[in-house]
C-alpha cells in the first residue's frame, strides 16, 4: 500500500469512529434522562463531531482527490466505513449508552495522549485538543458507571447486562493489521496494543468502585476496520446521509 494510502486509511478509520459515535449520541438530543444529562451527551457528541471534521478534512487533503469532509462523511457507502463496531451499536437503555461511551473514552484518553507525540504535525495538533476533551468524557462516564453500578438493584442489573452485551466489542479497539503496522513504521500512529494495560486498569478501577466486574470476554467480534459491519450501521447512515442524498450539494 502506498504511503499516502496508508495514512488516508488510518485517518479514515479514526474519523469514522468519531463520526458514527457522535451520530449515535446525537440521536439522544432531547431524550436525555435529565436536562443536564441531555446537554452533556450532546456536548460529547459535538466534541466527537469536531474531532471527526478535523480528521476528515485532513484525510481529504492526504487523499488528494478533492474530496472534502462533507463528501467523506455523507457520500460513502456502508462497506467503505471503517469504524470500530462498538461505535455503531444502538444506544439501548441509558446503561448501554454509558457503558459504550465509557469503554471508548477509556481507550481514547491514552490514545490521544500518545498521539501528541506523533511524527505528523496535523495529528499532533488534533491530539493536543482532543486529549483534553476526552478527559472530560471519561470523567463524566466514569461517574455514571459508579452511580448506576453502585445504585439500585435495577440500575446495577442493567449495568451488568450492558457490560455483558458490549464487552465482546472491546477487543477490536486493540487490533492491529497491515495498515496499522505500516502506519506505526511510518511513525505517526499509536500502537493500540500498548494501550491495553492502561485501558484494563481504568476499566477495572472504575468498575470496582461501581461494585461491578468486567465479564469474561470470550469471543471478540471484529470486522469494522475492513468495512464489515453489524446490521446497525446501515440504519445510522440512512439517517446521517438522508439530507445530502436527497438534496445533493445542500448547504445549511
Amino acid at each position, binding site marked *: 500500500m502506498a504511503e499516502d494510502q496508508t495514512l488516508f486509511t488510518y485517518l479514515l478509520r479514526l474519523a469514522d469512529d468519531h463520526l458514527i459515535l457522535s451520530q449515535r449520541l446525537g440521536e439522544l438530543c432531547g431524550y436525555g434522562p435529565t436536562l*443536564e444529562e441531555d446537554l452533556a451527551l450532546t*456536548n460529547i457528541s*459535538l466534541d*466527537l463531531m*469536531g474531532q471527526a471534521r*478535523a480528521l476528515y478534512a485532513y484525510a481529504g487533503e492526504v487523499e488528494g482527490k478533492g474530496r472534502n469532509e462533507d463528501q467523506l462523511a455523507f457520500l460513502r457507502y456502508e462497506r467503505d466505513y471503517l469504524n470500530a463496531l462498538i461505535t455503531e451499536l444502538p444506544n439501548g437503555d441509558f446503561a448501554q449508552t454509558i457503558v459504550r461511551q465509557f469503554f471508548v473514552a477509556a481507550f481514547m484518553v491514552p490514545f490521544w495522549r500518545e498521539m501528541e507525540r506523533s511524527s505528523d504535525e496535523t495529528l499532533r495538533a488534533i491530539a*493536543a485538543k482532543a486529549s483534553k*476533551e476526552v478527559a472530560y468524557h471519561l470523567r463524566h462516564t466514569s461517574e455514571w458507571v459508579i452511580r448506576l453500578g453502585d445504585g439500585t438493584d435495577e440500575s446495577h442489573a442493567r449495568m451488568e447486562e450492558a457490560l455483558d452485551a458490549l464487552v465482546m466489542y472491546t477487543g477490536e479497539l486493540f487490533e492491529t493489521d497491515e495498515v496499522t503496522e505500516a502506519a506505526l513504521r511510518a511513525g505517526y500512529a499509536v500502537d493500540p496494543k500498548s494501550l491495553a494495560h492502561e485501558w484494563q486498569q481504568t476499566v477495572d478501577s472504575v468498575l470496582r468502585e461501581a461494585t461491578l466486574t468486567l465479564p469474561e470476554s470470550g469471543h471478540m467480534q471484529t470486522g469494522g476496520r475492513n468495512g464489515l459491519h453489524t446490521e446497525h450501521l446501515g440504519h445510522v447512515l440512512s439517517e446521517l446521509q438522508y439530507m445530502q442524498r436527497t438534496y445533493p450539494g445542500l448547504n445549511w
Partner: protein
Amino acid sequence: MGDVADIKQQSGEGIRKAAWQAAAAVPDPEIPVVTVEDLGILRLVDLDAEGRVVAHVTPTYSGCPATQLIQEMVLEALQTAGFEDARVETVLSPAWTTDWISEAGRQKLKEYGIAPPEKTSNSKRALFGETLVQCPHCGAAETERVSEFGSTPCKALYRCLTCREPFDYFKCL
C-alpha cells in the same frame, strides 16, 4: 501585478495593523462581551506573497459550532474595512488553550456572569480533580458543580452555595 505588490509591501506594517484592528474587534457569537482578540483565537494577521490580507484563526473546542461563524465574521470585518481580497485560514497547531484568554477577557467574562477558567488552584480539592471556582456574582469561593457540561461545549454549570445563583464556568482546556 509586481507594482501593486511593491506598493503594498512598503506599507505592509500599516496594512497589517489596520487589518488586525478590524479583525480583532469581532465578538464571540456566543459570548458577545469578549472579542476574538480577548479569547486568543485570532493568532496572526499577515500579508501573503500577493499582498493579500490573511487572518489566522484557531478553533477553541473541536466541536465548537461557532468556529465557522467566527471565521465568516472575521472575513466580513476585514472586507468591510476595505480588504476585499482577504482570506481566513484555520491554524490547528499549537492547539488553543484557555490560558490564552487575556486578562481583559477574563475580567469581561466575570462581569458578564461567567466564571473564567481557573489556571491553577492551590486548593487541596484540586488534588482530587475538583476545580475550585469562584462565584462571578458574589465572589464567594463556596460553589458546587451541577454538571460538567453546560450551555455550550466550553462551559460547565455551577451553583453558588452562598448567593444560591447558578452560573456558567468556562472550562479549562
